[in-house]
């Protein structure tokens, strides 16, 4: 049974680290703000050189914002996990009554909370400086954010499982995951542009349905709620799958003693 105090312990530890640590707080808003500024001016420029009738702000700047949001959720979860890697805290943590579900819940709460700061910064900047209005997406914004939240959480947990299995050096495999996925999910273009094999992969990726839905709304066709519901189902499945993968890797690490010898990266 999950105990709230143990989940709170994981969250409180991250709160202590964030409090009074500008090097941890700044990246939460700095990189996403830079992205919004850069793409804000690109969309403004595109609106001036293309014919009237199509507004790039909700199509491109909105896409950047939503994609950055997913990335921030993922990085929020993985960074919370990396704090335990960096401080060699596994033995202290896993030799306690803390269960894996409590630990992952703490990481997810931390990741979601920190990503909300980034989301707020992006929204303020995109709305005030570049006139992006999320009201244009209507009620579809709810499934958009839900699918991206869940997808970011799943990617974050999967990233943590990879680092737990392959050691601290594999951290560098985790950071580029959003960049690797972005061509497939059609952040900036419709999936119909992609070759068949990429489209097949895209249809297995929950965020694809968000960006297709967003373009559908911008084109005045309304939100494809059935497709979005399917995307949400996929995202839930990802989270369950990612938790199972993490639990399996954890059991492997216990069975082989990897956790006790984590700095060695392998037990062979």
């Amino acid at each position, binding site marked *: 049974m999950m105990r709230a*105090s143990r989940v709170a*312990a994981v969250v409180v*530890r991250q709160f202590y680290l964030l409090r009074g640590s500008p090097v941890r707080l700044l990246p939460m808003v700095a990189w996403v703000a830079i992205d919004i500024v850069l793409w804000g001016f690109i969309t403004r420029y595109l609106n001036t050189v293309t014919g009237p009738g199509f507004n790039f702000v909700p199509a491109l700047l909105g896409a950047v914002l939503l994609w950055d949001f997913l990335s921030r959720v993922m990085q929020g979860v993985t960074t919370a996990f990396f704090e335990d890697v960096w401080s060699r805290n596994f033995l202290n943590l896993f*030799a*306690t*009554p803390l269960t894996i579900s409590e630990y992952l819940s703490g990481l997810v709460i931390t990741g979601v909370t920190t990503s909300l700061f980034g989301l707020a910064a992006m929204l303020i900047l995109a709305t005030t400086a570049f006139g992006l209005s999320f009201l244009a997406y209507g009620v579809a914004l709810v499934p958009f954010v839900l699918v991206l939240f869940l997808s970011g959480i799943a990617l974050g947990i999967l990233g943590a499982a990879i680092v737990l299995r392959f050691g601290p050096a594999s951290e560098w495999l985790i950071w580029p995951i959003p960049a690797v996925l972005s061509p497939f999910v059609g952040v900036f273009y419709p999936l119909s542009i992609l070759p068949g094999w990429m489209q097949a992969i895209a249809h297995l990726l929950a965020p694809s349905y968000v960006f297709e839905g967003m373009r559908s709304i911008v084109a005045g066709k309304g939100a494809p709620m059935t497709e979005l519901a399917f995307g949400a189902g996929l995202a839930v499945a990802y989270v369950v799958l990612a938790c199972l993968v993490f639990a399996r890797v954890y059991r492997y690490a*216990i069975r082989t003693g990897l956790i006790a010898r984590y700095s060695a990266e392998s037990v062979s």
Partner: protein
Amino acid sequence: MDGVSFEVRPGEIVGLVGPNGAGKTTIINMILGVLEPTAGYVRIAGIDLARSRSQALAHTNFAAAHVPLPGNLTVEQNLRVFGLIYGVTGLSARIETLLADYDLQRHRQTKCGVLSSGEQTRVSLAKAMLNRPRLLLLDEPTASIDPASARDIRARIVAFAAGDQGGVLWTSHNMYEVAEVCHRVLFLAHGKILLEGEPDSLIRTHGAATLEDLFVSVAHETLAPDGGPK
């Protein structure tokens, strides 16, 4: 590990000694649930670790010289985080007591990473006492502590065993320390328990002058090229 079987009774301090690589830390890792034995079982306060991991580990705690607490949290923050994990009731009061007991009050707002190794050991011991464990595991707890502080630490652990009736499994290379505080000693080599008994009894039975002499003779015998575990 091969055929290792022992128990630590309430209020008993058991010394786990042996040459480097004998398997002392491996045993402690198995009891802490971070290394799974290929056979056999671990029970803490009667609870099977493999079946009820969380419940079993709630009754134990540990301090190890080679496992410092996160250096980027202060002493008080670390105690609070681990107090929450162990579900300590009256946590703030418990932290105050432990800060006083382990002479850490002036370091409460200091990050653990900037403390001396001896101070870090005291913080680890304070953490280990948070939940008044039924089984306390100590892996060379006085390895980096000056003699006066080490004596003080030993007195506190003896008092813990006597007062809270917690069992203590204590690894150390300091045989004088083991002889002073341990009710029973397990000599370990090559993953097997070679000798077991009360320190004085072991010394008498094997005709050694001190526990250290006995340790050296057993270690030489087992580590010699033709010497294997007997």
